[in-house]
């Protein structure tokens, strides 16, 4: 947000979520909403994260567990298809990885500086049960 002077904002400890009227918000995808600059959607909290989840779509079964369990609505899913992680708002809690049921997991935690292509190339193999 701009660092306005004392006379350049609306009175009260009050912030608007949207620029102008907000109608049919429930049926509008986040990226299409007219969020205001003071809405937390427009602020990145990526630097809160030490570890990040990486998504491997080759193993994903679109069960939506990660989407349901994510406490920050940072799993992007469209028409019940998992698309990826909103890395501006993900805080790296790892819950999505924990609840992912596939084998190998479709989401794994990596250090923040991990290169995504390398991680995908070296994704773990399917674990087999020992007889």
């Amino acid at each position, binding site marked *: 947000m701009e*660092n*306005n*002077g*004392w*006379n350049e*904002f*609306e*009175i*009260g*400890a*009050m*912030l*608007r*979520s*949207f620029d102008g*009227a*907000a*109608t049919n918000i429930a049926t509008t995808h986040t990226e299409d909403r007219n969020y205001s600059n003071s809405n937390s959607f427009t602020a990145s909290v990526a630097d809160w994260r030490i570890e990040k989840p990486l998504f491997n779509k080759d193993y994903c079964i679109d069960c939506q567990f990660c989407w349901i369990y994510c406490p920050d609505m940072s799993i992007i899913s469209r028409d019940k298809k998992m698309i990826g992680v909103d890395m501006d708002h993900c805080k790296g809690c790892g819950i999505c990885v924990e609840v992912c049921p596939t084998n190998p997991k479709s989401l794994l935690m990596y250090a923040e500086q991990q290169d995504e292509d390398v991680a995908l190339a070296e994704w773990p193999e399917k674990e087999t049960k020992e007889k």
Partner: protein
Amino acid sequence: MAFDKMELRDIEVWDGNFAAAQAMRQAQIDVVAAYPITPSTPIVEGYAKFLADGYVEGEFVMVESEHAAMSGCIGAAAAGGRVATATSSQGFALMVETLYQSSGMRLPIVLNVVNRALAAPLNVNGDHSDMYLGRDSGWIQLDAYSPQEAYDLNFIAFKVSEDHDVRLPCMVHQDGFMTSHTAQGVKTFTDDVAYGFVGEYKPMNDMLDLDHPVTHGVQTEEDWHFEHKARQHNDLMTKVMPKIQEVFDAFEELSGRKYNIVEKYDMDDADVAVVCMGTSVETAREVAKEMRADGIKAGVVGIRVLRPYPFAEIIEALKDIKAIAALDRSSPNGAPGMLFNELAGALFNTDSKAALSGYVYGLGGRDLTKAHLVDLYKELQANADAGKVLTPLQQFIGVRGPKLAYL
């Protein structure tokens, strides 16, 4: 709307509490969240009865503390309703945290404060300790000296507070028991005239405007907090007094009853003046008239608007006075009194040569008698004749034991 109107006589015999409750009914408050406390209890009790009897359309929210009462008022005001409540003393003290919230959030809430001493020792009677406690909270503070004024100032409070250029909460003070429980003749408005004066509530940034969602009570740190506080102070310093004057003028036109930001009695040719608040003003007015028979040109200044502080009006009222007494009805606890300090602060950079002395009086409901004021005016005349304060700068009136005087 689905409520009954009440037939009132032109003059009703009401105490200050009932007068305030009637004003709250006539202003058609949407939400009262309250935790009743002596001596303000009958105000919210009165509103609750009017509500139960179908004379007002609103909500009465019973809460578990005064902190919760003001919190409920904040929520209702942010949602977009006309909101009021009442409290005193310990309850007021418990409310303090939320007083700063409501003013910082710029929510127009009217709080009737029936002034009462602060414990310990526990005391239910009137002094100005709670009123003084609120003076840095960012609220507007109006002081009523009688039931009539408690009635009138409630309407004025809503009209000032809810103005979109102001949007600051407003306290209407009256003295515990001396005003709140003393029945006097009160000139009334009909319900239609009263509501017509206050007007329909005009919401601003209300949470119930679902097409324009807002977050109230946000957090700001060192990057924004100062600007918000500066804005609030600016509006208190520049926007509130003109609005109060405008509403006082409109009220006079409607009722014939004239209010002033600083009330002056017998001040035109006065040499000596007492500055005080609450019921003491009426006592001082009576004594001032009597002092004139003894050749002492005595006057009285009553503070009607305590916050924002009437800096310019005080200077104007006291500019030709030779000796001034600041009467503080709250223990300064290790300092000169608030009125003494603030009068000194106003007069210091002026041409005033007035001898200014401070008096602490009336704590815990102790009476300020006419005899006290006669002695006080004589001291002031001696100061005026000498051109300086002959007594210590701070004295206590009406306390038992060896004379207390400091500074």
